[in-house]
């Protein structure tokens, strides 16, 4: 055995001294460590330094709160803004997007390669059937980057699609174009551009979008005013953050009640037009009784959203121009806010959503299917 063992390593003093840091950190080869330790018995100055550096290692400590409470951000920022009101505030309608992108970014913070490449199935409803598309966590962030890019383009910022061209400027075509244009599947490197763009959007709407936020944002097939587009992006950010959290088995909470309320409100406001569109395509019950003049009260469904962020909305059923009316209420559905959002995100089937319901069955069915049909990739 001893025949095969190399003799002790002999190193010059300056090399031994240069090894002290690595030795203190237990970051050198065993033979080098042995040589250093033997040297320390003979060299006073090196022994003193070795002791000092070993003690210093004890001071190294990993920052402890890797998982910051996501609610702390809101509390800290609100307390700051109370003490000194901002001259350039973030518009109220952009606050949900600001908060949701920050929450998702915090989730991504400690992801390693295995998390970034974890498979995710995106789910939505198309022609009243459940659809899905397989991608990865990084692919989802790329999807958010390209669709948020619709708002960026409307605001005159750079288009994250760059030179890639989408068949049509719709969210799904843009996403497919981005995925196709990349030579490799998306990696963690997509996080920085996504986060930078989301910060840029919040900054830019603070300056240029203030007031009404009526600037139109094109989604290819339709337009939303900027303030609704920012809510829509907040909604999608949360929905996909949940997809990601589920894929890597992390817990993830719904948005704060205040933000959830605005998201539900956006969906409730969009429902009448979606119903009309579906009726024109034979997907919703025809209007049997009264055609309603614009601005007049019409048959309505009472949408009751329970839980934090909840409330009640009267959805006019026969025309987007009609006014929701309690006197003309024909049906009443009640469900939890997060459940409603999952329905509108196409993550829950309209047949299976946990809904309390009273009244006109066709009207209820139409509204639930209309909600699911608002979902997209």
């Amino acid at each position, binding site marked *: 055995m001893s025949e095969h063992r190399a003799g002790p390593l002999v190193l010059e003093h300056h090399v031994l001294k*240069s*090894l*002290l*840091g*690595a030795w*203190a*950190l237990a*970051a*050198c*080869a065993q033979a080098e460590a042995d040589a250093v330790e033997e040297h320390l018995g003979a060299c006073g100055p090196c022994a003193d*330094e070795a002791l*000092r*550096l070993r*003690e*210093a*290692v004890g*001071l*190294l*400590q*990993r*920052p*402890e*709160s*890797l998982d*910051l*409470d996501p609610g*702390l*951000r809101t*509390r*800290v*920022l609100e*307390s*700051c*803004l109370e*003490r*000194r*009101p*901002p*001259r*350039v*505030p*973030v518009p109220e309608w952009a606050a949900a997007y*600001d908060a949701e992108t*920050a929450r998702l*970014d915090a989730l991504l*913070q400690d992801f390693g390669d295995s998390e970034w490449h974890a498979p995710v199935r995106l789910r939505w409803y198309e022609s009243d059937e459940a659809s899905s598309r397989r991608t990865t966590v990084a692919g989802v962030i790329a999807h958010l980057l390209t669709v948020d890019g619709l708002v960026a383009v409307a605001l005159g910022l750079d288009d994250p699609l760059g030179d890639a061209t989408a068949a049509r400027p719709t969210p799904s075509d843009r996403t497919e174009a981005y995925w196709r244009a990349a030579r490799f599947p998306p990696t963690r490197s997509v996080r920085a551009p996504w*986060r930078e763009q989301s*910060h840029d959007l*919040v*900054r830019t709407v*603070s300056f240029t979008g203030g007031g009404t936020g009526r600037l139109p944002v094109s989604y290819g097939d339709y337009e939303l005013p900027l303030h609704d587009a920012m809510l829509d992006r907040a909604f999608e950010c949360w929905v996909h953050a949940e997809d990601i959290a589920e894929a890597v088995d992390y817990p993830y909470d719904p948005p704060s009640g205040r933000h959830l309320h605005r998201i539900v409100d956006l969906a409730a406001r969009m429902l009448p037009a979606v119903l009309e569109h579906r009726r024109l395509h034979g997907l919703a019950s025809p209007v049997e009784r009264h055609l309603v003049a614009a601005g007049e009260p019409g048959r309505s469904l009472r949408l009751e959203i329970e839980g934090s962020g909840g409330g009640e909305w009267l959805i006019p059923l026969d025309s987007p121009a009609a006014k929701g009316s309690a006197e003309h209420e024909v049906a009443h559905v009640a469900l939890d806010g997060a459940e409603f959002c999952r329905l509108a995100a196409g993550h829950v089937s309209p047949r299976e959503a946990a809904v309390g319901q009273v009244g006109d069955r066709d009207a209820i069915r139409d509204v639930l299917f209309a909600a699911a049909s608002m979902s997209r990739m």
Partner: protein
Amino acid sequence: MPTTDVPPRWDRRMQQRLARGEAAALGELYDRFASLVHGLAHRVVGDEHAADAVTRDVFAHVWEHPGSYDPAQEPLRTWLAELTSRLAVRRLRTTETAALARGGPGTTEDLERTVRHASVAARADYIVQSMPAPLRAALELAYFQRRDYRQTAADLGVTDDEARRRLRLGLQLLATAHDTGAPGEPPGIGGAA
């Protein structure tokens, strides 16, 4: 421990945006530095709730007094680390003193020892956060990721000699945290709080 320093231009622009009263800038500042600030605070005060309070105080100070940071003097992260250490040690002293006054266990000497210990920890964290990024990166690899110095050298794209030099120099800097300063005072006192 981020291994790269933010370019000074970012610091300067951030300071200007905060001074202009741009709420979006405050959000970005939080997103970049909250985990650093909270981590440093937690190390000193040793309690989640108190660390939250220090975090709030730090960002409130920056937001209310953006002019107290001078980008020409030092990087923003260094300045924030120092501010955090100072406010955290101050809070620890206040809460410990109050507990003692209420008849809590321990003596004044215990209190001084606790504060002194926390001050060393705060100085150490401050030193890590303010040392040149290449030294911080080397320590990060060797200590937290358990890479030996040859792997560290390869990861950083430097020679073995250079990796050994960075590890030794980084620890030498860190060791100065034990050197006496008045308790409760991180090094490089400057700026207001």
